[in-house]
């Protein structure tokens, strides 16, 4: 489904504007600093429901930080993030907004799932437990139902027979596919994919990307994807954001970004990536 | 309930006994440091090494207090309880430090031994100039832990009547029938020594961890 509204860099008028937006995710003047280092510099962009956005750019340009802010793994320095018309990084207090408490975050972030570069499966659990643990304990899904769903998801990622294996018995690519199933088991509206193939041996990359293509085609999950796999980005995303030094250098549909980049920074970045890949 | 006058009165005696305790600790620990190193090296010998291993294992899995009492009962009367205490504590902790040294020695890269052999250094130079300096540097924090442990084991010398801190406290207590202040002060004196030592040790750890 093509995004209905992809207004970017339109300055929202003060606090509270995110609630007026039709977008699912709104970054409103977001700044993130680590000490003296500014990673995200006054960033504004929004993502429509069902939209699949790929973030590209040189390492250190702040792409991963965007995902980590959305997953509440980092605290925002300035600005506000809105999700579904409600403040996300902050919560309402009277007329204004204050930094979100842990309880508020817990209530909000259950719509978001994330797949990590290093898989981060729990080694103390089997594949099955990795997948059902959160639905059972967080969503309160009955165990039978969670098990059935786990089996379906494992079939989807092509690992049905590995359900009782240990993560350590799986290859990196298999682990990552389990991690995708684990994230999907929480039925997120938004799926964050953080360089999910970067830690894999080259021959295992395709299997993981195929699974993600399948997810993209068969569901309407909103996806934010940081990747160096340009052909994957071209295939699945509705929109590509090119980042450089904490700002959006260029954005557009994948055909334009990859076929006819306008910014020099985009051109040189694409050249370097494609040189490495092929 | 708490008699400060009385506390002040007993403090000099207790501080004197603390001095004795520290003395026992340092002497015992010195024995442990030297003997432990010798054991760690000797344990590499084929047969004698195995015997030593079994012996140190036995020392480490049986209680110090019964070892102290046992040796005390078997020593001639003219040897003072304090000497016996220091020796037994020293040997007991040598069994521990030997393990620490051993892990340090095993941590020295194999290439270092081979390099020494390639230079055909004599055994004494190999150990003294190459292996031990590297091994010991790495285990200094672990060895430091045993200094504090030794200190905290000195009170059990009350079992053979050495006039260390706890023995002195018991003497004062039974002479006066006022034990609350005495034993509480002893507890604080222990903290007074062991907390600063622990802080010092952590500094040491940080310093040597960087290497």
């Amino acid at each position: 489904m093509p995004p209905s509204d992809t207004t970017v860099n339109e300055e929202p008028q003060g606090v509270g504007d995110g609630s007026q937006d039709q977008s699912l995710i709104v970054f409103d003047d977001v700044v993130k600093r680590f000490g003296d280092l500014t990673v995200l510099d006054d960033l504004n962009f929004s993502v429509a429901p069902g939209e699949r956005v790929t973030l590209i750019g040189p390492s250190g340009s702040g792409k991963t930080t965007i995902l980590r802010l959305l997953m509440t793994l980092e605290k925002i320095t300035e600005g506000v993030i809105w999700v579904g018309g409600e403040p996300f990084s902050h919560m309402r207090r009277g007329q204004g907004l204050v930094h979100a408490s842990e309880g508020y975050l817990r209530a909000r972030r259950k719509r978001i799932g994330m797949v990590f570069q290093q898989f981060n499966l729990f080694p103390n659990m089997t594949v099955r437990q990795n997948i059902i643990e959160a639905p059972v304990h967080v969503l309160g899904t009955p165990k039978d139902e969670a098990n059935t769903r786990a089996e379906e998801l494992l079939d989807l990622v092509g690992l049905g027979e590995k359900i009782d294996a240990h993560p350590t018995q799986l290859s990196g690519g298999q682990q990552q596919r389990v991690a995708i199933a684990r994230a999907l088991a929480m039925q997120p509206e938004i799926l964050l994919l953080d360089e999910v193939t970067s830690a894999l041996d080259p021959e295992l990359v395709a299997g993981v990307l195929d699974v993600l293509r399948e997810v993209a085609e068969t569901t309407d999950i909103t996806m934010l994807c940081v990747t160096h796999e340009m052909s994957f980005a071209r295939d699945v995303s509705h929109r590509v954001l090119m980042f450089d030094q904490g700002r959006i250098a260029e954005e557009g549909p994948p055909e334009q970004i990859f076929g006819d980049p306008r910014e020099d920074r985009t051109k040189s970045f694409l050249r370097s990536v494609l040189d490495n890949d092929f | 309930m708490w008699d400060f006058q009385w506390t002040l009165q007993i403090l000099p005696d207790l501080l004197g006994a603390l001095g004795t305790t520290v003395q026992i600790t340092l002497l015992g620990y010195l024995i442990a440091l030297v003997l432990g190193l010798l054991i760690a090296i000797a344990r590499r010998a084929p047969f004698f090494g195995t015997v030593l291993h079994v012996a140190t294992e036995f020392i480490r899995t049986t209680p110090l207090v019964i070892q102290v009492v046992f040796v005390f009962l078997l020593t001639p009367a003219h040897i003072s309880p304090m000497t016996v205490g220091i020796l037994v504590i020293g040997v007991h902790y040598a069994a521990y430090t030997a393990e620490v040294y051993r892990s340090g020695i095993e941590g020295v890269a194999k290439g270092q031994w081979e390099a020494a052999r390639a230079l055909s250094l004599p055994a004494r130079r190999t150990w003294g100039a190459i292996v031990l300096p590297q091994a010991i540097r790495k285990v200094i924090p672990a060895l430091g832990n045993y200094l504090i442990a030794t200190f905290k084991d000195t009170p059990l010398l009350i079992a053979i009547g050495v006039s260390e801190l706890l023995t002195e406290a018991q003497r004062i207590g039974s002479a006066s029938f006022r034990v609350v202040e005495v034993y509480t002060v002893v507890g604080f004196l222990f903290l007074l020594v062991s907390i600063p030592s622990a802080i010092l040790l952590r500094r040491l750890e940080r310093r040597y961890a960087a290497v």
Partner: protein
Amino acid sequence: MDFLIQRLPLYLDGAWVTIQLTIGGCALAFVLAMFFGIMGTIRHWLPRAISTVYVEVFRGIAALVLMFWMAFALPQLSGFRLDDMFAAILALGLNVGAYGAEVVRSSINAVPKAQVEATVALNLSWFQRMRLVVLPQAWAQMLPTFGNLVIELMKATAVVYLIGVADLTAIAQNMRESTGETVIAFIGAFVLYYLIAQVLIFGMRLLERRANRKLGRTPPRGGGMRLPFKPASAGTTQAGGI
């Protein structure tokens, strides 16, 4: 030999007291270690400060001094007299628990940050994260040092005869006094202590192996476990002496 065989029941009585003290002390130490260790990993300063105070105070005071305080000072202070056995277990548990709390704290902190991030991504609560992910993984790391602490606690029980508990050391002293045979009387106790230690070491090894298996780490054959009566290493890590 006859000497020991005749008096074996007495020694076994003493050994049983030693074992009870060890089990009681370990149980208390374990609960305290978990409680204060987990407290030491909480971000808020107050629980962390409480945990540090507990650890430093009870690690800093010798178990025997604590025992004397409870057996002699506490009754005078409160008019309430603890059972000697209970006082001994309390002192041992508080002391070893302080060492254990440090082990728990550092093991929890050693669980990779990425694991914690994964629990955030799955929206687990703090309690669920601890129970389902962090503690099961930290457990394998705690066990080797816990094993050393168990041996140290068992050894530390031997001082209880000084406050009048009839443990294995007390029996050895009694035997010596009633028979005049110092060497034989003590050897009986030494051997029993050694055997108890070996059983404890064996038990802890089994636990370690199980924990590693649960994490999908199978130790190389023969490397993970030794024969129970072959001298095994105990108390070699930093938390060694008590």
